[in-house]
């Protein structure tokens, strides 16, 4: 490896020996592609004409009134595929093709990364296998149908709790078995080096556009950027441009589930401890011995007991802060934004909105707050409506 992928005391590549040559090959290909203007131009063309970038930065009148400051939504929900995931899968898909790999695999929780990977597989003519916890296969049926329509094979994972972490374990096993012809399209800014860096670099465009769009409209950078954090890819993409800008608060919102005290949550940074999961050192939800806990969230995409190592470092170095929003608060935000502006946010992104509304007191009328609306909520309709009805009945 050329780099260790360290973020402070976090990161690294803690994987079994057979995967090391594959990670070295990936790192070399990535370093090479990054310097190649042709690669960048090809990606930019697809981002623009296939995926629909740049996405709008939209001033939300109701959120602005509600929070007493200027609130903008970065509309990643309008990206092709329905979420920010496409930024990353287009990049990694082109990298896979450049490396001569014929098959791409991915894990998926909510199904958004699986859909985005399947889409790119169809576009580039690559065979696609998606590993998905059997629980998630059930609760995200429309996304499973989309993946299959795009020609991907969806492999339900029953091991462990049948959730996102188990899907990652299974994808890593499959990759280990098929290392020569298979490219693992990792979905979030976690995992072994070089994935956290690759995913951050491909998602960085979110923050780049926020900066450019806000400079044009308001002549300034934001006071704060707020994003939900599961593994943390949309958040790191929104933050990366601003890490060196001291005046910009960076705020991540973790899934509070039923509340930290209940033990049923995904508050990895707020309530976890440093540990080693899925190839890197970061914060992890675990017991005293180091057995990994199941995370819980109403949103499958945030249901992950780990988090990207760069977030762990941003928290410990106090450059970013991390708060949480519960299932109920996210549901409220989901219904509220739908009703007030006709925008149906993903349950994941609803956490960012809920977290922002809770922090409203710290912002004044001159402040500009950008919330990353990382995805659209169509996939969540059945699940969210059932939860809302259940709640109305109580």
């Amino acid at each position: 490896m050329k780099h260790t992928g360290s973020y402070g005391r976090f990161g690294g590549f803690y994987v079994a020996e057979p995967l090391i040559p594959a990670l070295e090959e990936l790192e070399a290909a990535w370093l090479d592609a990054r310097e190649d203007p042709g690669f960048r131009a090809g990606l930019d063309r697809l981002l623009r004409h296939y995926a629909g970038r740049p996405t709008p930065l939209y001033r939300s009148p109701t959120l602005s009134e509600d929070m007493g400051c200027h609130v903008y939504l970065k509309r990643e929900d309008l990206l092709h595929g329905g979420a920010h995931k496409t930024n990353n899968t287009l990049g990694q898909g082109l990298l896979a093709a450049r490396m001569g790999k014929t098959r791409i695999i991915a894990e998926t929780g909510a199904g958004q990364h699986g859909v985005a990977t399947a889409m790119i597989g169809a576009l580039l003519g690559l065979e696609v296998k998606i590993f998905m916890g059997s629980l998630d296969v059930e609760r995200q049926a429309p996304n499973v149908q989309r993946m299959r329509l795009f020609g991907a094979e969806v492999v339900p994972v029953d091991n462990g709790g049948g959730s996102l972490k188990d899907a990652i374990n299974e994808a890593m096993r499959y990759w280990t078995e098929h290392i020569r012809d298979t490219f693992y399209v990792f979905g979030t800014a976690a995992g072994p080096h070089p994935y956290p860096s690759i995913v951050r670099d491909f998602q960085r465009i979110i923050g780049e556009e926020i900066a450019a769009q806000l400079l044009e409209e308001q002549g300034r950078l934001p006071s704060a950027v707020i994003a939900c954090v599961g593994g943390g890819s949309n958040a790191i993409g929104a933050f990366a441009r601003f890490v060196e800008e001291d005046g910009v608060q960076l705020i991540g919102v973790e899934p509070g589930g039923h509340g930290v005290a209940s033990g049923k949550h995904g508050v990895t940074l707020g309530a976890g401890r440093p540990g080693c999961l899925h190839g890197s050192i970061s914060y992890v939800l675990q017991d005293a011995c180091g057995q990994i806990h199941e995370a819980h969230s109403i949103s499958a995409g945030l249901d992950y007991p780990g988090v990207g190592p760069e977030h762990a470092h941003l928290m410990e170095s106090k450059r970013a802060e991390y708060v949480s929003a519960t299932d109920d608060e996210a549901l409220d935000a989901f219904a509220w934004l739908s009703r007030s502006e006709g925008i149906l946010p993903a349950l994941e992104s609803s956490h960012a909105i809920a977290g922002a509304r809770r922090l409203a007191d710290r912002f004044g009328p001159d402040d500009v707050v950008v919330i990353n609306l990382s995805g659209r909520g169509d996939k969540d309709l059945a699940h969210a409506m059932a939860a809302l009805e259940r709640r109305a009945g109580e």
Partner: protein
Amino acid sequence: MSRATPAKNRITAAVRARNAAGQGAFVPFLVLGDPDFETSLMLAQTLADNGADALELGFAFSDPPADGPVIQRADERALAAGMTPAKAFDLIEALHRTHAIPVSLLVYYNLVLQFGVDAFYRRAAAVGVDAVLVADLPPEHAKDAVEAARSHGVAPVFLASELSPPERLERIAALAEGYIYALARVGVTGEQTDVDPNLSAALDRMRAATDLPLLAGFGIGGPEQALAARRAGADGVIVGSAIVRRVAAHLDDRDAMRDAVAEIASTLAAAAHTTL
């Protein structure tokens, strides 16, 4: 290290003793605490009584990405029965009260980290563990673990695969003690019907980098593969899933479980010990 020097490490010595007689070593694997503490202790004793030259003992982990389904299930059974690293060490201590057999551990790094790296190796040494392989700890990140292992007289073991290039093998050899865990296939644990045709060339490359014994593991499902791995140049074989599958097949009958494990161990030991 010259081959003539008597080995300090008990596993190295056990393998060399077999090799000196033209035989290979047999190292069976169990997940500690599968399906429960007492039964697991009985199974470890059974293996020691049926031809094992050393034991490789796994610490159950909730998220084992290097393991196939058979070992994953064993981890789940052990965890469901309340296994912890502290109890796993107690189990080894209990085993060593009746059997002096050398022991190597197979663990995932998070369990070592949460136990405390130095405390882990100190406790391992105290219960008579001879070597530790941390499956997801490559040499690049192994500084703390190797220092702790050495300071407590435990051999740090590393994996090597046919995909590891020569300079990487040198790096592994520079840190490793006890033996090299030579992957008999590129993949995860689990029984296979054939031994990887590249194994012989891979073992040759490893041999060029180290004098340590090369124990082949991953995918050795029966006596034919054990023999094939020996013929490919392995100094011994490590067999996991084929043993653990017998455990899983007899969960409702401890006597039948013991008999099945004894039988497969004897068969595999005979193959490994065959004079070539």
